[in-house]
């Protein structure tokens, strides 16, 4: 996969959670405020420049950049132990209450036009989130088990204190997280794009009258489409930078003189370069053009070139894993023995070495989580009991024979009905790691006696659509999208598997594409995967261990997917024009874009 593209999917799916906490910034050194600095050049892996697209963060291809000119109240530290652990953003601090969240805005929070950030901006931002399906019932539909941000009102408590009231009757564990993650936009720019009666509509959407709620959601969605297409005449930013201009090759942002902590911001300008593929990012780095580069898939030979150009490598945990998923409606993948046999044939070490040699670690055992996260939930005994499915052709053969498969004299396996067994392994065009890895897996399976062809779908949107339509029986899939565990398991036992969460009740139907059974029998116990996944979303992290233990054991035994590798977030920095970058080990910082590093006092002129 083109790493950036994977990252889009990974990051998009891994953002959004909540809880309660207070926090403070951890700035290191402070720069000299308004003095000139160097120009900082980078790439936004999630957001290549789209010529002609509006400077609107809600557009499908927005020309705004998180952490630079696009601001939130806080920035997610991706702390698996505390999903509500955030860096301060426009919120200097916050406190979770029984009825919602109280936020203290930064004392000097101002927009790039010099006007202060006010309650009106926050209210408009929440309303906009409802129109975009980022809050309210639409968001709940998108992430059924995780619930959604349900705000009944936003109040000014004075002195820069803002109160978010959670909808009465709703208690989302992650309300804090969801509220802090909201994109905050200027009321002066977006207020006119939101109808005056939007809060009445939101109230109707939250109300008990189902028909009125449905009509209100439809109205919000319609309004949201118009808002997403809105093109502001100029960028008005509360972040450390504000867009000066955008051309097809780059976005140029100047330091925002009104940013609340501008003295920490060293670069006088940020240039975000456009890219169409990994090889362009490699090329930029080889030429020493980027001051930092995001997570990009690369082979070892390119890594050596990049390091040779003077870059420093920074590794951090990425809560994403690559796996091969099954459509269990398609025989013979409905048989557990078949899935287990395939797991015994695939040599994950070899596949990772070829597919993701720099940014991947072979998965230790399929659990639905990456190893770094499963280790924090499972006891040593529970981890030891997991089957790692080390390559073992003899075990694979025995499993297939037990399932009625036969091998002919030429060494090819035949299905129980006697027909020759052939497999197509589906990947996505541009996802270079998946494609390269597919070649190895196809080779291994073919060598075992199951002729396997690697096929490539033109783009990821088509891939997801066709996968959802049940077109692929055996294909690549991102899993373990954490650190929120309910989201990780929702990837396996959520809407893709036909589990529907409505009005606090979870039901199972045939609408997904995975088609796993509703329950598994594991160690003599019945494991109801969907309800357990939903239960995770209302269970504090500290109490999740028993649930995770069941889900991990069931997933390891039944293999709805075979996890191939856990991604490592490999980033690069160049100590040529700037210094004081985060380092390997600064997990929270490295989970955020460079703009957030700068807000925390990192990145200084050299």
């Amino acid at each position, binding site marked *: 996969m083109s790493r950036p593209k994977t990252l889009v999917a990974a990051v998009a799916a891994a953002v959004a959670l909540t809880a309660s906490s207070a926090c403070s910034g951890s700035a290191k050194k402070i720069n000299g405020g308004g003095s000139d600095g160097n120009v900082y050049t980078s790439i936004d892996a999630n957001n290549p420049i789209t010529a002609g697209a509006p400077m609107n963060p809600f557009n499908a291809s927005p020309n705004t950049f998180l952490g630079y000119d696009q601001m939130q109240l806080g920035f997610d530290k991706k702390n698996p132990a505390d999903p509500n652990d955030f860096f301060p953003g426009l919120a200097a601090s916050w406190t979770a209450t029984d009825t919602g969240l109280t936020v203290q805005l930064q004392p000097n929070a101002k927009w790039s036009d010099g006007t202060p950030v006010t309650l009106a901006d926050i209210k408009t931002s929440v309303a906009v989130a409802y129109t975009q399906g980022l809050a309210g019932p639409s968001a709940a539909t998108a992430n059924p088990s995780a619930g959604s941000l349900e705000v009944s009102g936003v109040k000014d408590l004075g002195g820069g204190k803002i109160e978010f009231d959670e909808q009465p009757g709703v208690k989302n564990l992650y309300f804090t997280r969801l509220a802090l993650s909201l994109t905050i936009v200027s009321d002066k720019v977006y207020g006119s794009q939101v109808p005056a009666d939007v809060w009445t509509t939101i109230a109707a959407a939250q109300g008990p009258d189902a028909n009125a709620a449905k009509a209100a959601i439809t109205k919000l969605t319609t309004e949201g489409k118009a808002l997403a297409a809105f093109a502001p005449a100029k960028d008005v930013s509360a972040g450390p930078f504000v867009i000066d201009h955008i051309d097809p090759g780059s976005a140029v942002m100047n330091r925002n003189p009104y940013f609340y902590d501008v003295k920490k911001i060293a670069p006088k300008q940020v240039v975000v370069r456009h890219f169409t593929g990994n090889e362009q990012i490699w090329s930029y780095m080889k030429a020493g053009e980027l001051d930092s580069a995001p997570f990009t898939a690369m082979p070892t*030979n390119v890594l050596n070139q990049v390091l040779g150009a003077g870059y420093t490598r920074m590794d951090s945990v990425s809560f994403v894993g690559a796996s091969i998923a099954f459509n269990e409606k398609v025989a013979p993948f409905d048989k557990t023995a078949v899935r287990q046999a395939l797991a015994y044939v695939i040599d994950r070490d070899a596949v990772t070495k070829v597919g993701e040699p720099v940014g991947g670690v072979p998965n230790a055992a399929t659990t639905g989580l990456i190893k770094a996260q499963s280790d924090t939930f499972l006891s040593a005994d529970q981890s030891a009991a997991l089957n790692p499915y080390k390559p073992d052709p003899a075990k694979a053969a025995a499993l297939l024979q037990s399932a009625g498969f036969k091998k002919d004299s030429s060494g090819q396996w035949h299905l129980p009905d006697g027909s020759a067994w052939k497999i197509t392994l589906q990947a996505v065009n541009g996802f270079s790691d998946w494609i390269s890895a597919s070649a190895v897996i196809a080779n291994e399976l073919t060598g075992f006696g199951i002729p396997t062809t690697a096929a*490539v779908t033109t783009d990821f949107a088509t891939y997801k659509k066709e996968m959802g339509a049940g077109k692929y029986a055996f294909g690549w899939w991102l899993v373990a999208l954490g650190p929120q565990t309910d989201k990780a398991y929702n990837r396996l036992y959520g809407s893709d598997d036909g589990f529907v969460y409505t009005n606090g009740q979870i039901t199972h139907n045939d609408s997904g594409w995975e088609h796993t059974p509703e329950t598994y029998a594991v160690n003599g116990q019945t494991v109801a995967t969907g309800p357990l996944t939903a239960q995770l979303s209302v269970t504090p992290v500290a109490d999740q261990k028993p649930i995770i233990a069941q889900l991990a054991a069931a997933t390891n035994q039944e293999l709805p997917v075979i996890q191939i590798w856990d991604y490592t977030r490999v980033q690069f920095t160049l100590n040529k024009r700037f210094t004081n970058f985060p380092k390997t080990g600064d997990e929270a910082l490295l989970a955020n874009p460079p703009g957030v590093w700068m807000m925390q006092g990192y990145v200084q002129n050299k």
Partner: protein
Amino acid sequence: MAVTTATLGASPRARRPALLAFRTAVLRKPGRVVGLAIIVLFALMAVAGPWLYGRLEIDPDAVYAPPSAKHWLGTDFAGSDVLQEIIVGARYVLGTAALAALITAVLGTGIGLVAGYRRGFTDSVLMRITDFILTIPAFPLLIVLSTVWDFSSPWLMGLVLGGTGWGGMARAVRSQALSLRERGFLEAARGLGLSTRHIIVKELLPNIAPYVAMHLLLSTIAFVTAEVGLFFLGVVPFSTTNWGVMLNQAVFSGGALESPDALFYLLAPLSCIVLLTLGIVLFLDAVDELFNPRLRERA
């Protein structure tokens, strides 16, 4: 083959001069021998490649290994031998090009001859169809079709390339036919009351054959480039032995433009395309002489 043998057996006298002329034309210049040798080499690769090497071995510990005694052209992203991939991949490339060339020759020549000789309404209808074919952008069409059709077999790809590629040949042949039909020998044929079919097949076609042959070989180069280009874009089924996929993997996965390690992986399929083109161009010289009596006389 049976037909050929029977024909040869029935007419040994006719065979000898043709073979002799061919040998004479090829041997007259060393470049022509080289051209023929290259074409024969690739043809042999296409025929025998997949039989010589079944499943290619992978070696994750020898990714992008440099050329060595074991791997003459180095290894690819999975540690597979690049030379073996090139040899195995020749069948798809040449098979597709050959089928597309055959379709181009049959349709382009047939339609061009009939249109040029018959003129009038037939000419108008056939040329409007030809113009329509010429307006179809074959490469973008292939990109679109690749999303719905499975091009893992060379035959379907060849069919599309040939089906959209004969227009130029038809136009060119028609022009030649229009010119020839006014010549004396054709007027004499018509005067003798020979059938249209006889005139087109026995009188017109032999005179146009050298033009068709050369056009065909040049089309083959275009077809090879088109199919490899399509695979390079990565929008058709993935096969590690496909030359276009090799180029794609070398650039987009192996960083061949950033790192010398994957350079041989990039250069191998590129060199093959260049070599094949060179072979065809060199051999064209011989074909020209073979069909052109004036050149034969001059020689």
